């Protein structure tokens, strides 16, 4: 649903004629009223697949990709339709956690706007027609010339099947040009490790064994193929007390990793190199520190701390930092003796990593020379996303014909001669490799809903072959594993040999690195531009997904939009307010983009942050016309510098930051330093050392003693604010996306939201907020129809069919977690889109209140039949950092009981006497006492 989709917006006015017409229609329907009894149909199988039991879910191991690397997943299937994605608990790169984009992928599967069949110049054609014009028997130029004139543009991939197909292609067409999209590959990291160690390598961080970690503009806990595992390790080291990890984040934008760090030091992205060099200079003799290092005092303190933890620390460089910073991070880790301990290196799992295949210049030269007759672009959208210096659209147009394989009619597909439907990940076979090299199988959960293909399948077609994708995976598995295909598919992955290497550092590179770093320090009045793939929609790949578009962005709570983010002080200096449209012009270039500004507390001054992936011109109805396309400002490497100019225009932005504000006496988000926590483990505010006396009966009153007491505890020390839980809740509970205009009116439907607080010192804190299932629930007292009541096991439940929509409960809820259906958000969808609904949950109609149920459908199922892997709510299951505990509080051995017994557990708005069943564990940080930027309890 797009924000301008009119299907659920009421008619602006109802004229007399249309009113009479509608009345007559209604009367007619009443007269023919017996139609109400028209029976539903029951449609059984003709031949029932033996593994399917209607009404019961099956789980299959499969995989998602992040930047080409695999993440193991489990997918729930009910009667053959995929419903819900979870992380694979045994897969080393998931460990049961997922991110929001993995969770949301089921919505895209059923999207009505997917390309359905091959198209030639916009007209639907058959695959046979495609084969006639592209099959190997057709008379085409590149066949006779050993592939000269044939070019392929592919996304970075770790697919074993693709490797085999490319080998076959190269054998048949040795002169074909194969390019992997360099902009979405970790090319700076490869170049950096090549300079530091002599060969391009992938970096694996082990936070389970590190005591200190430094993130250099790296959102490592949320972004990238190893983030889920990193977040899990990080979370396990956040338990207050001895053995706590300490993290430092130097970054321009406000990221989840920075917010979660013990020290977050705002640093423009262009200054990270100098900072890394200064760290190295402090730790290693014979390195001279550079000029103009930001946070010089802090850098010395960090260096001392790292020095005291040699071999037990880690330095992580961010994906978008230039190669020199990656090289310095590698040399820092080598200096600190971390290599082989907390930081390990291995050959990249991506195909042809760091080879010439990631350099598009040969292809571009050939295109410029009109030497390419067939350009095939698979699963990439370079016409939209490539940096303008590639001049991709213009060059692609010089090819005699272009073929694009895409899920939606995106910019590349629209400009290509042939647009071929690309299969959804849940429709594909594959064998991919995780970031740590684990071979991970991908099996389809459903027969393809469209007549599509994959990059592997497309290459097979170009070769004139049509092998079954299952056979291809079987062959790839047979090459690598002793196990049979069925065994591999049932487990989802198999262990790979440890391929980590211990490279020899090359400190002789240092002078040239220092020179490069020094050259970057420029003193002009331009701002550093931090262009980041959006955490929700990526570089536009997931812009078709309404759940992700409506997910409030972590640092701004902005939905359905992007913006130029500035530090508030910078905005005051420039005389700008939130929503003012500015023109961003590339320094020394003519590219310019107009987009609204937004102030973000904590962002580094001298930095503009903007997200890629918005302003899509072509594609499905959800993606188009959302936000502004900032790719014109994109550069291949380095940090672009921009000039900013006010335009006098304004643009409305929909943010959820100021919705659902809680009125409070006591602090809602509690955090403290380790020392303060040791002195006062309850961390209660002064004057509230003991809980306020209650005039009500004892807690848990009126409940049968043998009933469970469902409760939840959320550890704020562990929450990174990644919002996987929000989307998991949305997928599990059929929560609709409502569009920008509705969100602007405060009508977003999320049952679980992540509130963003500024604590003392303008530090950001994230707090998941959901129905607190109060024992004395204010909502229940005011419901005139008893639609919201308490269950014997302590759930605050909603009976939708009793609700008449007075909204009294919403008004009386101090936590603002109740959501009202202003429209029939789910009605009128095509049948295919309705397949995403969880059949265990009612679809709510207009005029009904809803809210978090603690996933009561899962509770009831687990109570009766047990749940493999234990009962978990959707949010809890998705959380990569295990910040949520849920269970029966009457059992003192349950994790939730142990968490709630901790002194730092507190109830939000506990002073109201609502006795919430959800408790929060105050966040305890582990700051460096030698870094006196913050003091004591905040």
């Amino acid at each position, binding site marked *: 649903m797009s924000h301008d989709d009119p299907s659920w917006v009421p008619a602006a006015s109802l004229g007399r004629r249309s009113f009479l017409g509608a009345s007559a229609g209604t009367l007619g329907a009443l007269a023919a009223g017996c139609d109400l009894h028209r029976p539903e149909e*029951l449609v059984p199988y003709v*031949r029932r697949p033996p593994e399917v039991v209607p*009404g019961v879910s099956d789980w299959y191991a499969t995989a998602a990709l992040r930047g080409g690397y695999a993440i193991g997943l489990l997918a729930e299937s009910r009667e053959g339709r995929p419903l819900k994605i979870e992380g694979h608990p045994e897969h080393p790169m998931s460990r049961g956690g997922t991110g929001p984009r993995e969770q949301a992928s089921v919505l895209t599967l059923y999207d009505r706007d997917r390309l359905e069949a091959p198209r030639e110049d916009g007209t639907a054609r058959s695959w046979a027609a495609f084969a006639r014009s592209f099959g190997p028997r057709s008379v085409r130029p590149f066949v006779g010339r050993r592939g000269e004139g044939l070019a392929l543009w592919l996304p970075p991939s770790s697919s074993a099947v693709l490797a085999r197909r490319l080998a076959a292609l190269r054998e048949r067409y040795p002169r074909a040009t194969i390019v992997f999209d360099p902009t979405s590959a970790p090319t700076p990291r490869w170049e950096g490790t090549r300079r530091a160690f002599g060969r391009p390598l992938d970096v694996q961080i082990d936070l389970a064994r590190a005591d200190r970690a430094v993130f250099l503009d790296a959102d490592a806990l949320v972004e990238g193929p190893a983030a889920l595992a990193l977040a899990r390790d990080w979370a396990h080291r956040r338990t207050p007390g001895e053995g706590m990890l300490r993290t430092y984040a130097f970054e321009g934008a406000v990221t989840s990793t920075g917010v979660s760090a013990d020290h977050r030091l705002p640093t423009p992205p262009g200054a990270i190199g100098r900072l890394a060099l200064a760290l190295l200079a402090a730790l290693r003799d014979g390195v001279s520190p550079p000029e103009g290092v930001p946070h010089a005092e802090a850098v010395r303190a960090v260096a001392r701390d790292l020095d005291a933890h040699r071999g037990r620390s880690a330095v992580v460089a961010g994906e978008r930092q230039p190669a020199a910073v990656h090289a310095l991070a590698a040399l820092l880790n080598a200096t600190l003796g971390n290599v082989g301990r907390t930081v390990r290196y291995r050959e990249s799992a991506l195909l042809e990593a760091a080879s010439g295949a990631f350099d598009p210049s040969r292809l571009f030269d050939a295109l410029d020379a009109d030497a390419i007759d067939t350009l095939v672009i698979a699963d990439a959208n370079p016409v939209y996303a490539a940096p303008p210096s590639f001049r991709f659209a213009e060059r692609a147009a010089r090819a005699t014909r272009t073929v694009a394989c895409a899920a939606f009619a995106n910019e590349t597909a629209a400009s290509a001669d042939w647009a071929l439907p690309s299969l959804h990940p849940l429709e594909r076979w594959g064998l991919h490799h995780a970031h740590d090299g684990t071979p991970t199988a991908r099996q389809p959960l459903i027969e393809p809903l469209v007549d599509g293909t994959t990059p592997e399948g497309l290459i097979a077609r170009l070769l004139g072959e049509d092998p079954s994708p299952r056979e291809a995976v079987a062959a790839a598995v047979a090459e690598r594993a002793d196990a049979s295909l069925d065994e591999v598919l049932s487990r989802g992955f198999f262990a790979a040999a440890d391929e980590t290497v211990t490279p020899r550092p090359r400190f002789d590179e240092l002078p040239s690195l220092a020179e490069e770093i020094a050259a970057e320090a420029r003193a002009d009045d331009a701002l550093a531009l931090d262009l980041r793939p959006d955490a929700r929609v990526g570089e536009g790949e997931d812009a078709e997904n309404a759940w992700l578009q409506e997910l409030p962005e972590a640092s701004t709570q902005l939905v359905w939009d992007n913006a130029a983010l500035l530090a508030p002080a910078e905005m005051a200096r420039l005389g700008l307010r939130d929503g003012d449209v500015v023109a961003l012009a590339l320094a020394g270039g003519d590219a310019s983009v107009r987009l609204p500004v937004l102030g973000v507390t904590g962002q580094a001054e001298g930095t503009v942050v903007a997200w890629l992936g918005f302003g899509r011109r072509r594609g499905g109805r959800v993606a188009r016309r959302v936000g502004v396309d900032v790719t014109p400002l994109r550069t291949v490497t380095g940090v672009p510098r921009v000039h900013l100019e006010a335009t006098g225009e304004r643009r409305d932005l929909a943010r959820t930051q100021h919705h659902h504000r809680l009125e409070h006496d006591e602090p809602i988000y509690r955090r403290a330093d380790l020392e303060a926590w040791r002195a006062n483990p309850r961390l209660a505010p002064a004057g509230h050392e003991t809980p306020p006396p209650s005039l009500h009966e004892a807690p848990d009153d009126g409940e049968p003693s043998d009933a469970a007491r469902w409760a939840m505890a959320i550890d704020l020390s562990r929450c990174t604010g990644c919002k996987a839980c929000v989307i998991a809740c949305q997928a599990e509970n059929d929560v609709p996306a409502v569009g920008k205009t509705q969100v602007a009116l405060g009508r977003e439907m999320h049952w679980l939201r992540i509130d963003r607080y500024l604590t003392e010192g303008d530090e950001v804190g994230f707090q998941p907020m959901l129905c607190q299932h109060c024992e004395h629930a204010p909502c229940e007292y005011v419901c005139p129809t008893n639609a919201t*009541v308490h269950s014997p096991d302590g759930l605050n439940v909603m009976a939708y069919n009793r609700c008449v929509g007075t909204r009294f409960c919403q008004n009386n809820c101090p936590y603002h977690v109740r959501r009202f259906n202003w429209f029939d958000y789910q009605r009128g969808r095509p049948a295919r889109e309705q397949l995403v609904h969880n059949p265990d949950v009612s679809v709510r109609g207009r005029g009904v209140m809803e809210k978090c149920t603690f996933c009561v459908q899962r509770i009831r199922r687990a109570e*009766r039949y047990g749940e493999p892997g234990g009962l978990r709510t959707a949010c809890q299951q998705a959380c990569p950092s295990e910040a949520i505990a849920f269970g029966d509080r009457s059992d003192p051995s349950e994790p939730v009981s142990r968490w709630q017994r901790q002194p730092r557990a507190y109830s939000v708005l506990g002073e109201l006497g609502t006795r919430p069943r959800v408790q929060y564990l105050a966040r305890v940080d582990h700051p460096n006492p030698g870094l006196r930027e913050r003091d004591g309890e905040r």
Partner: protein
Amino acid sequence: MAPLPPSADFWLRVALFGGAALVVGVPVGLMLWFRSPLHLGIGQVVEQPIEFDHRHHTRDDGIDCLYCHHDARRSPRAGVPSTELCMGCHAQVWNEGRETRPLRASWAADRPIRWRRVHDAPDFVFFDHRAHFEGGVGCESCHGRVDRMAHVYQTEASTMGGCLECHRDPVPHLRPEDALTRMGLSPSRARGERVADRLGGVSPPTHCTGCHR
């Protein structure tokens, strides 16, 4: 101005009593209508694509309910048999003739038979066949004497009152495992208590989320 005509008193009374009758009668009438068997669909036969006769299959042939509706033991849904299951017999017996022609057509064309639902709980009710089966409630308690039905019809009202009546006092309706699909067993508290003991007590939910989620 003329005084009111003598009949005014009469018409005033008619209006008053008539109005009162309407105010009371319309809601009462609606309440009666919504509880009437006609509205609840009790006893109403639903036309099916195949003239399937439960009497014949269960009484004459002695086929157990679970032979066709075997999902009742492991799924919330009892399930309707696949064409394949029907053809398991009807490839051998009654493999020609008018009555089974739609079945053979479904098998030949690989097109499912579109049956029409008789027992239709509202979409916001999550009825669980397996839970009832495991709890010792047999088919007959809700579906009636299907073995005597030429065309299946509803015998019990599918209203919340009907559900709750049994959920509040389930014991008389409990049966031993071997009698779950037996027909013609009248409720018995003594038998039910023995079953409940064997099951370690039976406590069906009577709160909202037992059935509404």
